[in-house]
């Protein structure tokens, strides 16, 4: 594919250094190809770890902004600036979270000036500012939902001049709520029957065991398997 004549090349700069890239490539792959992999920190290569945060500027004056370099495609003239964000510690979660407990853990909650920078910065399209306002009102269920896809890249925090930490609060709410949910796994059934089934499944040669497993999986239990054979 490398030699596909139809692939156009484009010129971009990364941290001020000019380089050539193939159209359609991600910034990360372009860096790899140019032997400059260590310019931008990389983790998952799939848009979920938040390691590869960069900010991007276009020469034609189009709106740039923060992006994930592993998902963002190169374009002619694009200027890329590594924008790593150091993680900071979170506050320990508590049971039955509400607005008061959240404020206690994160007193900066009310500093939000509704500038919306966080929402613009979020590469996951999370309505960050709206969610901060929901936090102020204690709508924890909705907040937990909002942050389901948060990759903890920290960009919302990095751009917040008022030192609000939306993603940290989102995490705190999610973990706190999660811990307050009841366990819902069922109890094990009566011992005897289980042991009989284990005996049936685990004894014999590989072929025998495989054949038994094949039959067993079509039934709920050994009893019903035996019934079905009668």
């Amino acid at each position: 594919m490398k030699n596909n004549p139809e692939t156009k090349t484009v010129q971009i700069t990364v941290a001020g250094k000019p380089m050539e890239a193939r159209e359609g490539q991600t910034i990360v792959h372009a860096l790899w190809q140019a032997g400059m992999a260590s310019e931008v920190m990389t983790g998952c290569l799939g848009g979920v770890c938040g390691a590869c945060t960069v900010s991007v500027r276009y020469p034609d004056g189009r709106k740039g902004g923060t992006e994930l370099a592993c998902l963002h495609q190169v374009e002619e003239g694009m200027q890329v600036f590594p924008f790593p964000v150091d993680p900071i510690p979170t506050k320990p979660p508590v049971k039955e979270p509400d607005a008061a407990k959240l404020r206690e853990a994160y007193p900066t909650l009310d500093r939000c000036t509704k500038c919306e920078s966080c929402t613009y910065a979020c590469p996951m399209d999370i309505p960050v500012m709206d969610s901060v306002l929901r936090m102020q009102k204690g709508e924890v269920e909705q907040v937990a939902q909002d942050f389901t896809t948060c990759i903890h890249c920290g960009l919302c925090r990095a751009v917040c001049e008022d030192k609000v930490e939306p993603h940290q609060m989102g995490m705190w709410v999610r973990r706190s709520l999660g811990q307050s949910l009841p366990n819902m796994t069922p109890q094990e059934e009566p011992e005897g029957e289980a042991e009989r089934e284990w005996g049936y499944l685990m004894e014999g040669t590989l072929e025998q065991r495989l054949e038994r497993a094949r039959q067993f999986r079509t039934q709920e239990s050994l009893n019903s398997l035996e019934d079905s054979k009668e």
Partner: protein
Amino acid sequence: MDWAGDQLRQIEATRRQRLDESAPKMDDSKASTLLENFHPDFKGLERLVQVGPQAGKLKCLSEIAELLEADSPLPAVFEPSPTLETDVLVVGGGGAGLAAALTLQNSGLQVTVATKLRIGDANTLMAEGGIQAAVGSNDSPRRHYADTVVGGHGKNVPELVRLLVEEARPAIDWLTQLGVHFGRTEKGYELKPGGGTSTPRVLSCQDVTGLEIMRVLRDAVFHGPAQLLEGHSAVELCDDGEGRVTGAVLWNSEAKELVTVSARAVLLATGGSGQLRLQGFATSNHLGATGDGLVLAWRQGCSLVHLDSFQYHPTGSVFPEAIAGQLVTESARSMGAQLLNAEGKRFIDELSYRDRVAAAIIREVSEGRGVTTPAGRQGVWLDTPLIDKRQGEGTLARQFPGMIHRFKKYGIDPSTQPLLVYPTLHYQNGGVAIDQEARTEREGLWAAGEVTGGLHGTNRLMGNSLLDIIVFGRRAGESIISNIKDRGPVTLSALSRFRKERETVSGLSQQKAPQLYPTVSGMKFELKQAPLEKPGDDSFSQQGSAGGSSFEPPDPFSAR
């Protein structure tokens, strides 16, 4: 996707009619022929490994064989002298490593987690579909066992599978207590079917299950006492000269320095090897998945099992080019998405075992019924709009926010447009042999997670790996607590033996292993030159490390 206009229109036209069509069926003997003819495991590109504990016995892909035979990147003159002492060294900060670290939390043992990238930058974080546990009303651990064993072609180690399925419920409870949200209904956990499950058994957090689990484990570890060494890759394990593992040599990628650690117990939790991009396949794996753990354990004399088998996930993206190889979760198929060839025809039961589905896709493409992208890749269609047709409008957006988000960037909406897919290198089915306590064959060395082999046989079911890392990660932690020994001498005697053995074999490749990074990335294991050796030459430290540039990022919002 204008280039595929005609085909898209055809798929759209037949969608209604296909909705209620039953899936193409295939009996087991046909399936074996399909696998033998088209699954990459059966390509015959394997050979015997020539150096190491199973020399002349272990058969695996020649790419893996070369890796196992390779020399260590450590300079020949390197003498290990520990600069760091800990009780338990966990190598790898993914799900298995952190589950173990949390289990060790209140044991009084000092735990150090060393990981290649940042804590949590791992395959665990990328898991989408979910985690299996027999919590449904007509389900049992035995049924889960039966499904797993049939999926693994019966080659699974029975005792490991039994432990996996019996510990599933406690594992789910443990995660819930830590704050993981699994989807729920009024009656209990919401359960999805997965390829090869005989009843719905997959718990999930929408399509970001791994992200949710990893986020929570990481946060919990951040609150605990464990020492965390990010950007520290293990390049060699150390031993006491008598077969017991007593530490490791780590490479600090930021300082470009080697660090020797003395430990009373070492846990290998380095995950898989997708970034080796075997046989030229694209991969769904994170940057650090280069099979390092296999190499480290091998040089200590541990056996590897089922290494002749890898999982090629049937549905890796093919278009757009930028995200080629990235996963389209199996849940898409379990929720009703169908696979169609270039003629718009179905060719396999989408919920059959992964190896069969992957082989069937490869067959379609190699027999000329594939779709070619503008970049020259080939694939088949995955008709995702059927999900909403079958489960109700809005289901896809609700259940697959990750997928929607990823494709939206490229102007593709999976709820109205089908996606193009082809198998992607996804999972290392085999690996380091362990027992029910997650112990390897070497004293002092435990292993858990994707780096191990035996549990999944030669084909893993969706959702069994996330379960694996929690169950066996915790098991490793418990076992270390009850079996840990006193501190021993830290030597490289296993490596010296290995190097001597290498000298007796001719024609070995010059490759070094563990390779730490995908070779396509151009990232290297390069030691900083000692300043005294060559005064004035600091070219190594000048190489820009991540974020180390002197450029101020512009205000990203100035243009708003």
